[in-house]
């Protein structure tokens, strides 16, 4: 190559180089997009699961969240209703 007179035609290598460089960068950007989309889908699904779990579980959870006065009143109300049920039966 170093004793040549004319410039060699190496344009094929150059094109291959640029094509590969852009291809790799493009693939990486696409992988970032795909991973981000999948994670967002997972996030939405998990949030829905969390919401539905909160709706199903709550009885003791809600009891704990209520103020002591409220829950005491509620307990009293429950015992009253139980007694009235017994009487009626």
């Amino acid at each position, binding site marked *: 190559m170093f004793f040549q007179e004319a410039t*060699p035609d190496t344009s094929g290598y150059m094109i291959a180089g640029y094509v*590969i460089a852009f291809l790799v960068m493009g693939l990486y*950007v696409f992988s970032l997009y795909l991973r981000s989309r999948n994670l*967002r889908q997972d996030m939405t699904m998990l949030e829905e699961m969390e919401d539905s779990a909160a709706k199903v579980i709550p009885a003791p959870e809600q009891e704990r969240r209520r103020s002591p006065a409220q829950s005491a009143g509620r307990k009293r109300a429950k015992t009253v209703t139980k007694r009235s049920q017994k009487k009626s039966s």
Partner: protein
Amino acid sequence: MQPKPLALKIIDIVALITLIVATYLALSAPTERVMGEVQKVFYFHIGTAWTALLGFILAAVFSVVYLITKDLRWDRLQVAAIEVSLVFFFITIVLGSIWARPAWNTWWTWDPRLTTAAITELIYIAYFMLRQGIDDPDRRARFGAVYALVGGLSAPITFFAIRLFRTIHPVVIGGSNPEAEGAFSMTPDMRTAFFFALFAFTVLFIDLFWNRIRLGSLQDQVEQLKLKVSM
């Protein structure tokens, strides 16, 4: 997930425009007389190599900060820097190999620079394999930090390999190598394309790095939510 910040959207666009301009300048730069058109891959080869090695060193710095603070945000930065650098360094190696075929008459030779570059790439591929094998986030971050810190040494070794050892790889920045095959001197137009490519790849690195950090934070949110739902 928080919506994309305006600054990141601007960097996305700037990175794309600078990359297009860098490609235009590289392709329209004067053709080197001895090697011909293939010499033009050199602009992207150096641009990607510069940002990749910078990213590996940054990752080592983030590792040190993580080991001191134990804050997982630094682990996220470290992973992002290594992943983007790994992609860029892969491009560097492939472009170097494509250039070597007409310039050295071979795709690959076990020259000190090529060997150290290949070892660096393999070290960081192994880094992700190591992380995949550890479930506990704190343990994974600690092991990853130590590994990235030690692996970070490979970046300066790769950079200085052509300055310290006998090699046929040309020295572009800061010196000349009499045994180099394929060395050339740059014209002002070539220099413009060269420095603009360095700038364009630096902007692209920042852009991809930021996007990858956001992805990492989203991954952490999903992991936390999974734990919360499973409990």
